């Protein structure tokens, strides 16, 4: 990486979708605590970084570092091989910094994602407004998954080759496995469009009102 001047391809950018988040399950008989874990831990959770289509991320991602809460022994957990997952136990929620390193031959800097570890299900009204909110799937199992796209602006040539080795950026239209589908995207777009329309109406109304007031002010000033 050092010393080697990376040529970049101008005018294009490549985006790769990823999902990251955590699963959490309360400790039970079926799901016992690991033997060396502290006894007060109530949940077993798994942090992960994945491709939404289930492809191998290791083509361009070299390493993922999960930075846990400082109370954990060795809070910086490095995962060098896929799957980029970390299984741990705990009793509290905290923010995890997920640092993603790319293949060193690509010459790209690392990026950092932030994820709030979720162990408990939240009431639905809160859920609807918070992105990546925990979703209870099975009994007691809590999932909090966020969608993200890593955008390589003007990628280096080598990175470009790696990224285009397999077609993988396209999301499925409909899928049982993942909530992040084209359909979902379309829905979100529609929601935003609706909101935009709403705001545009208000903006127009306000603009008209504003102009009226301005005219009135001018008139008053001239009086």
């Amino acid at each position, binding site marked *: 990486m050092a010393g080697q001047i990376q040529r970049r391809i101008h005018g294009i950018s490549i985006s790769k979708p990823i999902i990251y988040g955590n699963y959490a399950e309360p400790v039970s008989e079926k799901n016992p605590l690991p033997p060396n874990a502290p006894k007060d831990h109530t949940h077993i959770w798994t942090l992960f970084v994945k491709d939404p289509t289930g492809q191998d991320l290791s083509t361009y991602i070299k390493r993922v570092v999960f930075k846990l809460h400082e109370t954990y022994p060795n809070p910086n957990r490095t995962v060098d091989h896929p799957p980029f997952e970390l299984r741990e136990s705990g009793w509290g929620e905290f923010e995890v910094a997920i640092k993603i390193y790319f293949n060193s031959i690509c010459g790209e800097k690392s990026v950092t994602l932030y994820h709030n570890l979720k162990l408990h299900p939240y009431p639905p009204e809160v859920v609807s407004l918070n992105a990546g909110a925990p979703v209870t799937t099975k009994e007691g199992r809590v999932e909090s998954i966020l969608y993200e796209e890593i955008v390589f602006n*003007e990628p280096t040539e080598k990175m470009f080759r790696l990224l285009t080795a397999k077609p993988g950026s396209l999301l499925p239209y409909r899928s049982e496995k993942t909530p992040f589908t084209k359909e979902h995207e379309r829905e979100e777009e529609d*929601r935003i469009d609706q*909101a935009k329309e709403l705001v545009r109406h208000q903006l127009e109304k306000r603009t008209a009102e504003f102009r009226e007031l301005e005219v009135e002010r001018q008139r008053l000033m001239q009086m």
Partner: protein
Amino acid sequence: MTSDILDVLNISEKTRVEGNELKRKRSEQKENAANSAKRQRAGQMNRELFNLIGPNLPPVSVKRNTIKFKEKLKLNKEVKWEWQAFTPRSGVKNGPKFHHWVKTTVNKSQNTSTEADKSTSGQDNLTLNKSTTEKKEESAESDNLKNKYRFEKYNTKLAIPDFTKAYYDENLKGLDEGWDYSETRYLFDIAKLYDLRWAVIADNYEYIPVKKTADSETNVPSDAVNENKASSNVTEEDSKIKTKEESDTKEDDEAEKEAETNAETNAETNAEKKAETKVERKENTDDDTNTHADEKQNDRTKVSDGGKTENEKKQVKVDTDSSLSAQKGEEDQLLKAESKGKTDIKDSDDGTKAQEKIFEKGKDSSREMKQHDNTISDKMQNNANSDGDKLQGRTIEDLKDRLYKVSAVILEKSGDEIKDAALIRSLKSFNKNKEYERRSYLEHLIERTPTEIAEEESLVVEARKFELAAKKMLIERAQLLQLLDFPQASSSVQKYMTSQGLTDLYNVLMNADKSKKRKTETPVPPELGPSALPHTQLMQVKQQEAQQRVNRKTSRRKKKSTSPESHSGSSLPYDNEGMEIHNLLRSRLTQEQMDVYGISLHEEKIQPGVILRSQKLPSFKPMVQNKVFEMLNEVGIAARPTMPTARVCHKFEELMKSMASLIDLKKQTDNLRTEISLIKSQRNAD
């Protein structure tokens, strides 16, 4: 010094024995030396001694105070002071004589200068006026000049326009119904007397309204309430005016020395005429008294008194008339000095003629009066009443108004209209009602209490604060308006809706594209915001692709799959390779395929590197950001899109931006509304 050295040498042997004594001696010697030095230079220190002081200088400079005597007065010469006589108004004959002490030196110089003046002016006069009598007067005048009063030049008079009765009847009668000739005359006289000092004029304005018959100007004193007092006042006033008038004429003459002699002759002729007129007048007044005898039986004696005063008044008028003519004469002289003598004679002739006319008129009128006895008596009663009312009602503004209006008319008709245009305009601009208003305001201002004043001051401070705030707000509003007036993108699209327009655009963009490709290495400043151009270019690229796709459909799949390997193995230079990839992508891939690979093309320069899509959403000022989030919450959209894909993020960004502008607009609208209500409340308060 040699002796010292010898001493030292001699003593050097002793020093081994008597070191102490030597030391003492040395110190003594030093002391002596120091003393001598002190004696020599009392104020200064020895250099050696000074060096001993070290770095610290003495705080006070040692300097003996020498006694300073007062400077001696420069007595050059004794100045002579003379007891001299002078007349404050050199033009006045038989005026009061005063004496004062004058420095002879100063006086001499002054005298010489005045004499020089006089000699030149005298010569002029001599050449101009060839009559011997005038020469005599000239010499008399020169005597007078010798002890001309130094400060006399400051005794100036205002040039108030004047008028005659005839002139008044002709031009000024219809100006104001509330004023008649005699009162106007009185006003002008008193204005001249007090040099337009309006406060004084208004204070001393005690016009006794006179009964005036329809045609005549033979004025008879009315039976005013305080007749005794009034008559005495009038006489006083008249005498004042009379002297004033006389002096006036003479002073005017003094101001322009060339005219002196003429004025003198005028004065003389006037004096002669007065004597004549007096006789005639008395007859006249006798007539008058007879005619009015029936009506004013109880006031008869007083009427005769009034008649006298009236007579005097008449004289004053005559004086003023003649002075007017004299003034005219002077003006003429200034213009054409040669014809001066003639005009003087003419003036005096005119004066006498006019007076004669007046007397005739008076007689006629007295005759007529007898005929219209009854009607006149009625009229007079009316007049008396109305006059009495008027007298009470004349304010300073009334007086000003009248004088200015009359003056304006006179000046307008005088022929110097262009010269006096500014003056006339200013005279005409006088608005009586405005002045009343102004005065009432001022009175109100004076009558303010301290609390009111304090309140007002605090209000002024408040107002200034408001002004500052308003200024700031206006700037903000202007910025917002500018923001709202950005060009609408939809209008420009319409142009390209037809196929013709589209091909035009296509050609233009192709050319632009080519030139851009050539210059890929040169840094282009990034365009702000999502502009329409790149988007259309993308569309165009798509079109291009669609065309090419048909041709190369077969080879595409193969190349696509092998492209990474082939590139890695190729020996082409990197630069070409990069371009090749770019071109390849442009030519081979459809939008869907690009989607599959997550590739997007953009023309604008972007920061190379890896980013996370959701972290590139726009941010605003903290306050606005919070409000935007609030608003997002209201419409049920999370602060972070759940699926931050390119399209979602683009839309989300737009949404946030429009929300931010909406928030700004809301704020400005509120400001505007409060401002309008403020203005309204102010208007209401007014």
